[in-house]
């Protein structure tokens, strides 16, 4: 398990090892994969912006609540960025080998995480309103 993770991490940083595998796909597929990576990176940046915004604008909330929500968003952003590069490298390898593209649970998890965070913020704002 740890070996597998280390292997994948090594692959992120060594594109030449990637190039040794299989055949180079049509360049358009690689560019599409690159754009998908960038879209995930923008998702990550949006989560970072959300985390910073919660900290700056929800100042009526108690410090602990506000910081927890902000930290969850920031951690989600970091996770999205890491997942972006991981998915990119796995897709690139699958295309070179002629395998199916990797299936992923991550979008579903992200959706659930987004819903839970939204509920948390709604709850915190409503409770704050009621307490005031």
């Amino acid at each position: 398990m740890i070996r597998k993770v280390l292997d994948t991490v090594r692959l992120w940083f060594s594109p030449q090892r990637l190039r040794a595998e299989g055949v180079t796909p049509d360049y358009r597929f690689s560019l599409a994969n690159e754009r998908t990576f960038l879209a995930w990176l923008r998702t990550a940046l949006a989560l970072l912006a959300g985390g910073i915004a919660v900290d700056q604008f929800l100042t009526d909330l108690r410090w602990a609540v506000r910081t927890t929500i902000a930290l969850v968003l920031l951690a989600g952003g970091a996770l999205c960025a890491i997942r972006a590069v991981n998915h990119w490298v796995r897709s690139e390898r699958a295309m070179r080998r002629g395998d199916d593209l990797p299936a992923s649970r991550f979008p579903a998890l992200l959706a659930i995480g987004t819903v839970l965070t939204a509920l948390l913020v709604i709850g915190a704002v409503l409770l704050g309103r009621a307490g005031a």
Partner: protein
Amino acid sequence: MTRDPGAQPERTRLAWRRTTLSFALVVALAGRGVATAEGARGAGALLVATTALLWVAFLALAHHRIRTLTAHRQPPPAGATVPAATAVVAATALCAGALLAGPW
């Protein structure tokens, strides 16, 4: 020279551009927090300056990639630019996390 019917390099170039723009918004938002903070803010300003530098690094990466995309009719894969861009965004996440501990 016939243009690629899918306009793939152009679309990828624009994707880099808008990602750089999104990143700039994050830096601006972080800067706003420090600019509006009351009292001492040395450490906060330092953290925001770091995120600004990270943004410049991202801009350089994007610029390099955009040049490659423009120069070749069939551009090579992004290679090391992708993990480097990820590292810059992850470092920005760390800076944002440190900013939470403020007001500095």
